[in-house]
Every structure is written in structure tokens, then in C-alpha cells.
């Protein structure tokens, strides 16, 4: 006889109609559960996340089936992925059984599940079930025994884990009972293709035939009831993420990373700018809360959270979800403290690691926009002063705007107002223009370009702050004023290419200014120097040195520029010792999100924490390619007690030292 099994054995085909009715009812309960969430999500503002449908579907299927985002963190992630694939196999297998029993057999009289196919099918499913059980046990131990820091245990976790254990175990018991009555006594060898059932079947071998039949029937209904329970529980427990996190992979934005919607300041009918209540968010911001599984990956990477500041990106997301349900028209400020919102460095570590595609950063910026534009609030008086300085003199320090180009006095650089026929416009930025330590970046970059025969122009006193810090602090008005002035100047001079040494200027000019009408190519000096080296226009003498490299958030995570600066430094003779947190996992210096102009009053110093990470590599040199980072590290080295042990340098300084004629 060919290997197969009788579907609905001991249950009878009479069960088909009530079974399907119950399944439909359970699915109905599930759909209704999500349906009831719809009004909660719809409290948010309109936002189109259904365009480019094909690409969205493709991305969603890719992310879900590959489990790529979950497995970026091995702890928990690998278990989740293997559990997912096993459970998926069980789902597909069960569906196949249903198709076989209720479509293929009655309508076409074909039995796919027979012979070698059945053996393979049976073995695959049994192994998947065992694997799922093992993974579930692992996850159980992780959550309840190991209890990683920050992983909170909530009621959902008990319900979900119990339900999944019960479904898997009852499935094996059910199989075991059936095999004890059918396959085990015959010993045809078929039982070996159901190792899980074979094992479970041993429990039932001593039962009388009659008891066995009754036991099997009870187990079947019990297992079935649990599956129905699974459907019903789905929208009301963390299991909802099967739907919502998957949906979020579809709904994720297509805009370049770091894109912030440009506010229409001409709209005099607008009564609210930024988010003051839940209803000021987009629907997607509210939906994000439902996609969150509280995996705490965002929180443990957050530089503010790690240094004991009152911000947790996880809490921001869950609190928005809670408020959307309980008090959608209430002031957000009553729940989400200003201190928390101002603590964000917009480093994007949270968003980058989030397996659920949640958009943390823009939520915080939207709330900051309301604080700044609607309430005139500041994180501190020093920020009020810096903002006023930018308004008057175009730089946060308050230096005379006319002295912006003074650093280049002896360098015979062409000012665009006198000679605009240049290869590149160097957009210097405030720090390299005015800050004593950072002027070295500007001077060295000029030396590099001169050595490569590049003709550089600067705007000098016609350049203003790019507006990045104030934009990230929520002051869209001041940002747009300074941006428009810069754009007008740049356009006047018919510029071919812009190069910046500051990743913040780079992001702003290359991405944010597009929205305001600037469409000239913009490059960061790391890739520009890389290009000069590749083209043979610049040659470096390799002088050996040991270093560790810090990825600026706005260069690595935001702009995917990770390898180029490292390659340049290797060509310069450097041997790199990586910090644990590097590349996309880099840990912010603390200066992003406008924090560069704010005092760090709460918690520990982020820069000192990063300097400590650099010290741990044993390398004596910390290289970065961002004036903000350099500023923070010079400070972090002093306050972190690393003077004499660690030196902070910029990429341009290393390269300029090694130029060969």
C-alpha cells in the first residue's frame, strides 16, 4: 500500500461544514478586531502610502520571508526567524491538507499526499514542528529566565507563548494519538517519517482502542479550538504584529532616509504646525504603535536612553499608541515630556534597527515643531541665544556674518562674488568657518583640493548656516528663511558642484534643499576625496598609524557612506580597529538633532561614552569626518578623562598630512 494518511481519520467528513463555519467565524472575529482599530488609526492626517504598489508588495514579501530585519540582531532575532519559517511551514502544510481533503479528493479524486511525497511532507512538517517548539522554548527562556535588560514582560507575553506552546504540543499529541492507533501497531516504517508523532505516540500505546479513539477526538477538537483562539487573539495581543508589522513593510516610506516634510509657510489658513495632539500626526504615525512589538532594540541603541536621559524611542511610540486610544485630542505635552523630546539627537539608530519599519525620528521632529513654532519653546536659554544669532548673523556663535570667510584670509581662495568660475563650491558650514578646532578641517580640505588641482570657491560672508540644527529642533520657519537665502546665492553663481565637509550641511543641501528648489549635485568631502584618489589626481604617501573610525550618523546611517572614508584612511597607511558599534550600528557623538547648540544637562555625557568605546579598541586615534563629531570628541576626551590616551582628528587632517607632490 502506498504511504499516506487518512485525513479526518476518526473525525469523519461530517466535520467539514461545522469546521469551516467555525474557521470563518474565527477569521471574522479577527477581521472585526482589526476593523475596530481602523477609527483609531484614521484619527491621523492623510498620507499616501499606497503608491508604487508593486514595489511595496515586493519589499514587504522580501522583508517578511527573508526575516532580514529581525535577524540583524542575533539575540532573539535568529530564534524568531527560525520559528517564523517553521510556523510558516506548518501553516502551508495544514493548508495543503485542507486543499487535499476538501478540494483535490472530492472534486478531482487526486491524492497528492501519497507515496514519497507524503513521506517528505510528513517529515518536513514534523521537523518544522519540533524546530518551532525548540525555538519557542529558547524565546521563552530568553524572556522569562534570562530577562534581557529593557525587555518588559507584559500579559500579552504569557498569553501568546502559552497559546503557541499549546498549539504545537497539542498538535504533536494529536498526531501521536492517531499514530498509536494506526501506524505504530503496523510498524511499516512509515512512522519513522513522523518523528514527533512517533515520540508522542508512546504516551498512548497502553490505552485501549476505545479510549484512544475518544482521546484522539478530544485532542483534535482541543487543537482546533486553540487554532481558532489564535485567530481571535491576533488583533488583541502582540500577535497582531503578524499583520501590522508586515503591513509596515508595505507602508514604509520611499523618500530618501531623513526626509522631513517641508511645511508650507505661506498657508495662512493653518492653525497648527507640528504635532500637539494625536490628530496632528499622520495615520501612519498612529499605526506604527500597533506595529511595535516592544522588542526594545530602539531603546538600547538610543544614545539619550543609554546615558540616562528621559527619552526612550520605544516609549514615544507606545505612548502615542496609548494616547490615540485614550485621549486623542489631549495635549501630547502632558504625557510626552519636553525633556524627552529635546533629548533626541535624531541619530536614527532607533529607526535603522527597527524590524517593524517604525518612523521614530519624524514623530519627535513633528512634536518639536509644535513646541517651537506654536509655543516658542527652547531646550534652554543657550539655544534661544544661538537661534537668535543664526537669525541675525547666520551662525549659532553670534560672530559677525561678515567674518565668515576670515579663516580663508591667507589661502587665496576665490570668493564667488568675485570669481564664480570654479570646479566646486565649498559650502564650509558654521563650525569649519568659525570654530577654532574645526577651521583645521576647512584649511586641510583646501590643501587637499589644491594638491589635486581643483579650483575651489567659497561664498564667504554670503554663506549662512544651512539651517540643519534649527530644522531638527523644529524651527522650520528659520530653516526655510536661511535655506532660501543660501539657495538663491548658490543659484546666482551657476555652480556645477557643491562639496561640504559637514555631513549635516551635506544632508541638508543634498536632500532637504531639493524640496526648496536646489538641484545641483552635492557631495561630502569623504566621497569627493575618494574620487580624487581613484582618478589618480591625488596621491598619498602611506604613513602607518593605528586608528578607530567613528561613523557620523548623518554620513553612515543617513547617507550609506561607510566604506569610502575607511578606504581613504587605509590608503593613508592606517590600520583600523573597529569599535563594536560601527557602520550602521554607530553610536552618536551627541551633537545631532540640534543638540550641538544645546547644553547637555540631563544624564551622562554621550560624547564621553563614545570616547570610552574608542578607548576600548586600544587605538590611540579617533578619526571622524564631521565637525560636530570632532567638537564632541575633543570635549569627550577632556571630560571623559582620556587626555593623553586618545586623540581626535578629522579625515581631512590625516589626508592632508600625507599628500605627495
Amino acid at each position, binding site marked *: 500500500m502506498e504511504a499516506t494518511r487518512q485525513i479526518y481519520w476518526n473525525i469523519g467528513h461530517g466535520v467539514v461544514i461545522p469546521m469551516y463555519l467555525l474557521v470563518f467565524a474565527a477569521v471574522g472575529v479577527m477581521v472585526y478586531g482589526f476593523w475596530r482599530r481602523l477609527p483609531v488609526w484614521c484619527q491621523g492626517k492623510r498620507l499616501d502610502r499606497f503608491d508604487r504598489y508593486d514595489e511595496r508588495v515586493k519589499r514587504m514579501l522580501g522583508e517578511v520571508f527573508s526575516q532580514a530585519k529581525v535577524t540583524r540582531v542575533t539575540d532573539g532575532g535568529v530564534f524568531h526567524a527560525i520559528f517564523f519559517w517553521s510556523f510558516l511551514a506548518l501553516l502551508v502544510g495544514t493548508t495543503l491538507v485542507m486543499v487535499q481533503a476538501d478540494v483535490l479528493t472530492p472534486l478531482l479524486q487526486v491524492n497528492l499526499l501519497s507515496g514519497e511525497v507524503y513521506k517528505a511532507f510528513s517529515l518536513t512538517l514534523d521537523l518544522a514542528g519540533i524546530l518551532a517548539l525548540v525555538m519557542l522554548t529558547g524565546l521563552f527562556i530568553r524572556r522569562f529566565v534570562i530577562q534581557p535588560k529593557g525587555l518588559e514582560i507584559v500579559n500579552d507575553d504569557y498569553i501568546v507563548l502559552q497559546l503557541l506552546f499549546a498549539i504545537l504540543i497539542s498538535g504533536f499529541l494529536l498526531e501521536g494519538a492517531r499514530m498509536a492507533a494506526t501506524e505504530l501497531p503496523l510498524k511499516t516504517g512509515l512512522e519513522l517519517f513522523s518523528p514527533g508523532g512517533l515520540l508522542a505516540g508512546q504516551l498512548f500505546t497502553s490505552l485501549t482502542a476505545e479510549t484512544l479513539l475518544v482521546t484522539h477526538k478530544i485532542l483534535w477538537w482541543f487543537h482546533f479550538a486553540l487554532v481558532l483562539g489564535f485567530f481571535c487573539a491576533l488583533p488583541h495581543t502582540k500577535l497582531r504584529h503578524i499583520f501590522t508589522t508586515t503591513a509596515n513593510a508595505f507602508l514604509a516610506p520611499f523618500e530618501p532616509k531623513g526626509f522631513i516634510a517641508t511645511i508650507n*509657510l505661506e498657508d*495662512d489658513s*493653518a*492653525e497648527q*504646525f507640528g504635532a500637539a495632539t494625536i490628530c496632528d500626526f499622520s495615520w501612519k504615525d498612529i499605526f506604527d504603535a500597533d506595529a511595535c512589538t516592544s522588542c526594545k532594540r530602539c531603546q538600547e541603541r538610543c544614545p539619550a536612553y543609554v546615558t540616562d536621559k528621559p527619552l526612550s524611542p520605544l516609549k514615544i511610540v507606545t505612548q502615542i499608541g496609548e494616547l490615540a486610544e485614550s485621549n486623542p485630542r489631549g495635549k501630547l505635552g502632558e504625557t510626552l515630556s519636553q525633556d524627552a523630546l529635546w533629548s533626541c539627537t535624531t541619530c536614527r539608530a532607533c529607526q535603522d534597527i527597527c524590524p517593524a519599519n517604525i518612523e521614530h525620528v519624524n514623530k519627535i521632529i513633528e512634536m518639536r515643531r509644535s513646541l*517651537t*513654532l*506654536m*509655543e*516658542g*519653546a*527652547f531646550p534652554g*536659554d543657550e539655544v*534661544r541665544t544661538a*537661534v*537668535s544669532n543664526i*537669525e*541675525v*548673523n547666520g551662525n549659532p556663535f*553670534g*560672530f*559677525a*556674518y*561678515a*567674518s565668515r570667510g576670515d579663516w580663508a584670509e591667507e589661502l587665496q581662495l576665490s570668493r564667488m562674488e568675485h570669481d564664480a568660475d570654479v570646479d566646486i563650491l565649498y559650502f564650509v558650514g558654521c563650525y569649519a568657518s568659525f570654530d577654532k578646532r574645526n577651521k583645521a578641517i576647512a584649511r586641510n580640505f583646501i590643501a587637499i583640493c589644491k594638491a589635486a588641482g581643483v579650483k575651489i570657491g567659497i561664498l564667504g*560672508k554670503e554663506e549662512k548656516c544651512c539651517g540643519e540644527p534649527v530644522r531638527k529642533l523644529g524651527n*522650520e*520657519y528659520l530653516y526655510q528663511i536661511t535655506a532660501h537665502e543660501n539657495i538663491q546665492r548658490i543659484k546666482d553663481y551657476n555652480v556645477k558642484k557643491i562639496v561640504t565637509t559637514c555631513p549635516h550641511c551635506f544632508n541638508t543641501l543634498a536632500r532637504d534643499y531639493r524640496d526648496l528648489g536646489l538641484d545641483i549635485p552635492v557631495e561630502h568631502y569623504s566621497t569627493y576625496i575618494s574620487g580624487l584618489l581613484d582618478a589618480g589626481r591625488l596621491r598619498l604617501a602611506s604613513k602607518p598609524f593605528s586608528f578607530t573610525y567613528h561613523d557620523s550618523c548623518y554620513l553612515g546611517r543617513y547617507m550609506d557612506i561607510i566604506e569610502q572614508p575607511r578606504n581613504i584612511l587605509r590608503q593613508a597607511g592606517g590600520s583600523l580597529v573597529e569599535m563594536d558599534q560601527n557602520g550602521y550600528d554607530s553610536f552618536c557623538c551627541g551633537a545631532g538633532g540640534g543638540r550641538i547648540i544645546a547644553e547637555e544637562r540631563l544624564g551622562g555625557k554621550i560624547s564621553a561614552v563614545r570616547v570610552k568605546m574608542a578607548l576600548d579598541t586600544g587605538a590611540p586615534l579617533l578619526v571622524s569626518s564631521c565637525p560636530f563629531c570632532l567638537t564632541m570628541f575633543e570635549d569627550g576626551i577632556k571630560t571623559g578623562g582620556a587626555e593623553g590616551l586618545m586623540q581626535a582628528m578629522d579625515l581631512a587632517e590625516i589626508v592632508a598630512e600625507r599628500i605627495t607632490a
Partner: protein
Amino acid sequence: MKLLVCIKQVPDQESRFEPDAAGVWYSETDVAFRMNEYDEYAVEQAVQLRENLGEGAELTVLSIGPDRVVEVLKKALAMGCDNAAHILDNDASRKDPWQIASIISSYAEDKGFEIIFAGMQSQDRCSAQVGVTVAEHLGFACTTTIVGFEYANGMITVRRELEGGMKGVVRLPPPALVTCQLGLNVPRYPTLPNIIKAKKKEITVIPVADLLSEEALVATTGFYPPAKKCGGIVLEGDVAELVDKVFVILKEKTAVLR
């Protein structure tokens, strides 16, 4: 109740000041302008009073100068003033405090203002005369350098800053003029809806000739930076290098090593 606040647009103090062609005032080349700091306190206090008085109160902001002063008027409107008067005068910097005060008082005399706010002095001219002279012209009660302000039951009570950190309390009935000092308040940052609303508020432009009949009593005859008497040098670098540098300086410029 009608209120007036007088403000001036002044150069940012970080600007590089060069004498103008006539050598009697600074050149405006490469100078950034902003609202006089003390006037910001005046505007804030006036707006707070305006808000407390509610319906029926009206706050006018006034400034004298060329077209560029519209920027500070707009800021004051965005902070909460109801309307603005721009006394258009391209030659305001050549006028002495007596003339400036006369312009303001001839603007204000028939308007029925009950309380006038002004900065204690401007950051460029620093005469501290305009506010008090306006009060004298109009026959208003006047007090200066206030660091606290309260208006209740038809009476103004202010705290004044005295020498050595001492404070004095002064009461005066309207009509009155007060000049404002640092410490009075923290000027608000205009909100975006208010900036947008301010664009629609009225700015009345009045040519200065319509208001000025007085001759100058004081003439500025010179403007120059202090003579450079000595300078400091900040040395930077490794300690070993610093020692060498200090040694060279001591040897070349002083007698201690000879």
C-alpha cells in the same frame, strides 16, 4: 487703553564697526541689524500688559529709521503688538536725542496713549535720553531702568535697578513712560501663526518731515575705535613647543633674559 512701545533697530554688537565717510558715525557696510536689546524687554512688557488688559486695549509699536527698520517692526507685531508706525527717516542716525524725542512726542501727543514703554537706552547711541525727554515733552510721569512691572487699579508699580544690585519700588499713575532694563522679562519667541498674522497687521508710514520741527541741540563730531595700546597673544600647541615660543618671546621682547 492705548499703549505705545518705542523701538530702535541697532547694529549687532559683534559687527565690525568702521567709521563712515564723514567720520561721525559707523558705516553700515557689513553690519547686521537687530532689535535693540532693551527695546525687546519693552515690547515683551507692553505685550504682556496688552494681553492682560484684553478687549479694548491697543498696542502700537513705533520706530524711526530707513526702510530696513520694518524688520524690527514686523518682529514686534509678531510678538503681539496690534499695529505699527514707521517714521520714515533715512537720516535718523544724524539726529540727536532731542530731535528723536521730539519726533516721537509729536507723533504721540494727539493719540491718547496712557502708558509708553521704551528701552533704557539704545545699544549704539547709548544716550539714554530719548525716553525721558519724550515723557517731559508729553508731561508724562516717568521712571527708568525698570526690572519689574505691574499695573493694577489704575496704578503702575515698578521695581527699579539701583547701584550695587539694590532695588527700588516706584509707583506712578498713567499717563506714564517707563524705560526697560535687562532682567525685566524674557522676551517671547514669536510663534509661526503670529508671524503669519503679523503680515496682515497695519504698518503706517509717516515721513519724518511731518513730525519734526526741532533743530539738533547736540552734534556728533567724531567716531573712532579706541587706540590699540596693548595686545594679548594666545599660544597653542605641545608643552615643549610652548616653552620654546615663550622663551623666544621673553628673549626678543623683554629684558628678563638679557
